[in-house]
């Protein structure tokens, strides 16, 4: 499908481009905006894979919740200091070299692996609504890990409240 490819490359370029911009911007608020754009582009790719529940949850949780708090905190920080500081240290060429080696390795593995990678487009048949499927899997198959994770989050939340507030 022509349209699918166009949309996929649009979202992919948007995600990668904003990710690069996020790292290179000097202003922290601009970085946050580009991170938001990366997350939104990723959500778009989820939607293309017909994972509409993941798409919506990605936007609600990461973009609508966590990033709002990020921006909230960044706005309270004195940005003038950060703008004058050096952003990259002098070993950046080492990192670049390592990234090149890793990229080369990935290409070699991909070329020699050949048919092991299934690069076909996702089936165009419409899938059943997957909000229910996610719920069923989460509350039946992975019930115990789910509960443990939620208790962990609760403990972290209470700990944060206790540390932040002396008088409770």
């Amino acid at each position: 499908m022509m349209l699918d490819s166009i949309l996929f490359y649009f979202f992919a370029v948007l995600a990668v481009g904003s990710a690069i911009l996020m790292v290179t911007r000097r202003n922290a608020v601009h970085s946050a905006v580009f991170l938001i754009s990366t997350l939104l582009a990723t959500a778009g790719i989820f939607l293309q894979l017909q994972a509409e529940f993941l798409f919506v949850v990605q936007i609600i949780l990461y973009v609508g919740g966590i990033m709002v708090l990020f921006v909230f905190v960044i706005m309270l920080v004195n940005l003038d200091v950060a703008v004058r500081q050096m952003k990259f240290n002098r070993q950046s060429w080492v990192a670049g070299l390592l990234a090149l080696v890793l990229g080369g390795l990935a290409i070699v593995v991909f070329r020699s692996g050949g048919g092991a990678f299934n690069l076909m487009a996702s089936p165009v048949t419409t899938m059943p609504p997957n909000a229910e499927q996610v719920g069923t899997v989460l509350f039946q198959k992975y019930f115990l890990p789910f509960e443990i994770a939620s208790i962990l989050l609760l403990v972290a939340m209470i700990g944060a409240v206790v540390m932040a507030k002396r008088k409770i």
Partner: protein
Amino acid sequence: MPFGITFDDIRPFIAPVIYALVIVAVLPLMAGYIVLLERKVMAHMQARMGPMRVGPHGLLQPIADAVKLLLKEDITPKNADALMFWLAPLLSVTMALLAYAALPFGPAFQIADLDVGLLFILAISSLGIYGIVLGGWASNSHYSLLGALRSAAQLVSYETAAGLALVSGLLLGGTLSMKGLVEAQDQQGVWFIFIAPFSFFIYLIASIAETNRAPFDLPEAESELVAGYMTEYSGFRWSLYFLAEYANMIVVSGIAVTLYLGGWMRPLSAVHMHIFGLPYELLDLLPALIFFGLAAWCSKLALRQGEQIQKLVMFLFVGMFLVLGAVMAWSLTSPSLMPGIHGAFWFIVKVLVYLYGFLWFRFTFPRYRFDQLMKLGWQFLIPLALVNLVMIGIAIVLVQQSGWPLAIAMIAANVVTLIVAFWLVRQGDKPMIAVLPAEDELPDVGPGEIR
């Protein structure tokens, strides 16, 4: 066609694109007339006349305002962050308009019926906050920054309560699709406001707080912050913020109407009355009668106008209402068009009723203080929403597994919620830190602590 795209490929996109164009074209006009309605309602509540000069009874005031805003000078402050200053109002208005993609204006008039429609609208409308936060930050002004911070804190606080209230409504509907929610209410034969009144009540308060409307309009409190996050904006960009605010109001009203007030269904849709041997139901005649009544009332007002041109404008409105009434009456004869047209009529009427509630609250309640706002959100609405959610869940299990009648289970659940609500109100009246020792008597935790 180029690129191997055939007509069959684009056929499914034609109707949604037309719907989207209609919504984008009509919405600014509708927002303008809601502003006029707001000023008129405010004037009547304060025993004044309201706008009377531009057009008969101020009916052309929205158009004059729009022209004024478009012609005003567009100022960017010298030390503002130009890119973000430009982007912020655009974000606000884009996100507000995107949410309309899943809003069902009728059984036929909906751009896309998503399986996760309600979550999609919630997700998109929660992005509108970036317009406010970034705009307030980019203006490089203290008033704007404070307004933006207040807005972010307020939205994060009330989104939880609104979300929990919506979940208890969703449990009753058993689906996330906006269309499916209305159909569930149709099948169960009752609007969810009658079986989950507390969910509706919590959502009503939280939706007012989320759209930054009075009495929760602290982000733009004019007596403290000039205009909050919009202080440095002027002209067209300012009007984009305004458009986004009114578009968001319609979106939250649309969610409430779909989930609690039966969506596009006619009131008393289970009642079938026929009179004088007419083939139409009595209540289906209401839309046409309402429009003809409005036309008659407007022509009465038109005859009273002194100026010739005012008379002419008023008669134009008479003509508009007559045409709309005729469309409503004509659609009765066509069984294929009638559900769509009448559905859209009832949906818009319900949205307007909900919006009237917004206006009513604005002119009757004084603005909350910031700590009162936080206390209401965190110490009353969220606990109440949690209790309500658990109670409705229990009631649904009792109905489905133990075969209780729906009415009894729901009344029991709501009575428990009501008792908890009274208890929370009583707890709220007590001073919070009465039992704590004075500040200097507290034990010293050690150096480096943050007070």
